[in-house]
């Protein structure tokens, strides 16, 4: 700030005298000229203004206040003498960056020493990052084995804790941690040839966040409930929960490819209107990383198709590729292939929030637990139903489903299509005409007829109190209601397989 003074420049003694008069005798005794008056609490802000007014009067000048850290007797002398305002503490000595006063502070000294040797620092940082990453990769198998087993729930789900907080994006890695990877390889090891052995009763259950059992324990999820029902007929049944959030067929095909060489005899696909929607698939593929970062799985799966059936797969594949480029998919895959951190970051977060600092993460866990008690379908205003207009149906997605069922059929794997709830049973009447077949159901019935698979229509099976925090998630009771018909369909498909 500038000042103007027509008189001879005052000395520090002159200024001190004016200050003493304004503040009272003795207030400035022993105060050095360079001591910051405001910062040290020697004067208050209002006293500063009084001083400025007195100085202006005494030396016939106009003074603007300097920054708080720069109010000293020396700086006031300069200002009263018509010189430019001195810079604040942060701005002095900047001509030479190496001598900046901030660098003398304890928190900065080490950083500055490192910054002066940037190449060495970078080399050291990279080295230690590699070491830490390697240690991080070893920890879940060694010192943190127990916590890791707890984190992945013994491999019962691909997407542990079902709340969205603990997800990594790599399907192959998720499958490698899943119980299906430990399943005894007694049959259907598909050397591209059906190889079911009688007696094997394994089901791969694909789906979305509702199928995962979001906000529920792994044993309360729909696949676990279906397994419970199947075990009433035979203890040997095993149902693998291979669900991952997003109502996307391409995502399920990626997961199917990731478990392609794992043994199972029945595949259950969760489907609903959004699975066939052009708009929905574009939106999800564009927005969610896990729907694109697994692009190689999708490409691999498309290659398994006979050439005449590939065009619909290519159409969706192009969409995924575009989104993958936008989301730096290649870089993410490189990270996943060469470093432990991308895979173990959710585990680290779980370790912090779920073990070591659990009390501090209370609000987050309370939020997760609270979702269990929510009943969104009973609230007002009502949530919109997840329905699509017929014009939004993407024929490519319909064809993909048919091709996949036929491919599995050729491998000896039976398919069950589970048409998921669209909303509370009480709101069925909102669909016009009443009781009309819905799009997903129609498409699945067509697919079922053409491709010899069983369709379980549960579109309006769940009443309003059995939805959780969204119309996509169900309570334990909801899952108990949905499970028996699916189990019956699996049993039926199994019998057909035996025939």
């Amino acid at each position, binding site marked *: 700030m500038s000042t103007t003074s027509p008189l001879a420049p005052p000395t520090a003694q002159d200024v001190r005298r004016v200050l003493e008069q304004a503040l009272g005798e003795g207030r400035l005794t022993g105060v050095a000229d360079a001591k910051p008056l405001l910062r040290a609490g020697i004067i208050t802000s209002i006293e500063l203004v009084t001083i400025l007014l007195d100085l202006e009067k005494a030396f016939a000048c106009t003074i603007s206040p300097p920054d708080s850290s720069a109010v000293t007797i020396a700086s006031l002398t300069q200002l009263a003498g018509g010189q430019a305002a001195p810079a604040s503490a942060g701005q002095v000595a900047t001509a030479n960056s*190496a001598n900046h006063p901030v660098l003398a502070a304890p928190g900065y000294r080490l950083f*500055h020493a490192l*910054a002066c040797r940037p190449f060495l620092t970078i080399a050291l940082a990279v080295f230690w990052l590699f070491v830490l990453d390697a240690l991080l990769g070893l920890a879940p198998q060694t010192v943190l084995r127990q916590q890791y087993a707890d984190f992945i729930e013994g491999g019962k789900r691909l997407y542990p804790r079902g709340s969205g907080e603990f997800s990594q994006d790599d399907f192959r890695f998720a499958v490698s941690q899943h119980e299906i990877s430990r399943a005894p390889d007694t049959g259907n090891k598909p050397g591209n040839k059906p190889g079911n052995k009688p007696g094997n009763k394994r089901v791969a259950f694909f789906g979305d966040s509702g199928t995962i059992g979001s906000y529920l324990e792994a044993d309360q999820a729909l696949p676990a409930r279906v397994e419970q029902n199947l075990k009433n007929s035979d203890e040997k049944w095993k149902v693998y929960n291979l669900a991952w959030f997003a109502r996307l067929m391409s995502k399920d095909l990626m997961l199917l490819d990731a478990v392609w060489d794992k043994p199972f005899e029945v595949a259950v696909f969760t489907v609903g209107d959004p699975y066939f929607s052009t708009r929905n698939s574009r939106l999800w593929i564009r927005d969610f990383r896990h729907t694109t970062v697994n692009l190689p799985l999708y490409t691999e799966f498309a290659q398994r198709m006979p050439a005449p059936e590939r065009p619909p797969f290519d159409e969706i594949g192009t969409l995924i590729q575009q989104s993958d480029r936008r989301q730096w998919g290649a870089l993410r895959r490189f990270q996943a292939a060469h470093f432990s951190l991308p895979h173990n970051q959710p585990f680290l977060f779980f370790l912090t929030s779920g073990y070591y600092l659990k009390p501090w993460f209370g609000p987050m866990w309370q939020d997760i637990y609270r979702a269990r008690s929510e009943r969104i379908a009973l609230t007002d205003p009502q949530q919109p139903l997840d329905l699509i207009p017929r014009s939004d149906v993407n024929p490519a997605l319909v064809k993909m489903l048919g091709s996949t069922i036929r491919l599995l059929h050729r491998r000896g794997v039976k398919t069950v299509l589970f048409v998921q709830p669209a909303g509370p049973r009480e709101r069925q009447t909102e669909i016009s005409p009443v009781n009309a077949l819905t799009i997903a159901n129609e498409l699945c019935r067509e697919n079922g007829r053409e491709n010899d698979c069983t369709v379980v229509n549960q579109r309006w099976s769940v009443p309003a109190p059995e939805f959780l925090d969204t119309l996509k998630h169900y309570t334990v009771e909801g899952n108990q209601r949905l499970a028996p018909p699916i189990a019956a369909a699996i049993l039926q498909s199994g019998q057909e397989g035996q025939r």
Partner: protein
Amino acid sequence: MSVLPLVIDLLHAVMVLSLSARLDVAILFFLFSSALVLGRRLAPVSRLYLTLAICALTFVLLLLRQTPFLMQWGSTWPGFAGASLRRISQASIRTLGLSYCYLRVVYALVSRTDWTAPGFFRYYFCAPTFFSGPVLAPETALRSQTRFDKAALAFALTRWMNGVIRIAAALILMRMVPLALPGAALQAAAWPTPLLWIGVFASGVWLYLNFSGYSEIYIGFAHLLGVQAPENFDNPFGASTITGFWQRWHISLGNWLRAMVYTPLSRGLLATSTSRLIASLLLPAVTMLVCGAWHAVTASFLLWGLFHGVGLALHASWTQFAHPLLSKTLRGHFVYRSASWTLTHAYVALAWIFFLPVAGIGYADRLRLFEKLVGFAQ
């Protein structure tokens, strides 16, 4: 005249505008500000022009920030004005950094009358500090000279490393404190009171780590581009008085408030027959109200500002009346300083209730938390 500084200034503007959510709004605000600042050279009655210019600028800022009270009040206006305000309130016109632009333009209007278009362009678009400070005084920006040398790079790297570590710590702390995320803030009402006190204090630490971390990065970036940006924080949790706290917290904003609000008002008051005591009680409250309003014109922010203003006024009175009665030895005693520190930071922590999180919880929820902390509610 060398072309290089001009090119660098243009690069600053391109950098800033490319990050603006609404390019049209950012450019229009700049053009409006330029007209006000450059128009001052032509204004015959400088003081009246200055007042009108600051009022107009404030009105436009409130408009562009879709200030609720203005939108509600304005929507009742008849004719074109009311219809325009209704349209503005429904449009998506928010863009980054307007609040800081406002501070710079007021600085520019008040501090000098001899602005040239290139000079103001350079000051306005100074990229490293454009979006969230530190608030530069005009001289600082105009003195800047881009240079790349090893020492400047080392300085910038030092600040960046410090900044990144602070931001990382803030990210870790964010999930633990009650006032960083809206969901957590609502649940914090159920916390036991002692834990809530710790949580609210930790929320202030979180904000400090986050904001000072970004400031470190901006200051490093500015230094690399030859701009000597002022420090924004100086260990505010080391302050043992509320006045000390404000001399160490968001320093550049504090300096702006002192230069643009506090000093002119106190000069005016002291020039009249108003006593120094009244001025020292009234002015901190007014200044801090302006500070709250600058963040947003909502009941919560205004209350936050007023709360701090009252604290500053109380401290000024304490300094004026109680200090002379206490011996220097007592004031320097560990117990006195500890009590002073605890009182200061408890007061600051209480005020955070009205400040954080910026969105997500209502005024009533904040009051409930406040009542619980001060013991009026269980």
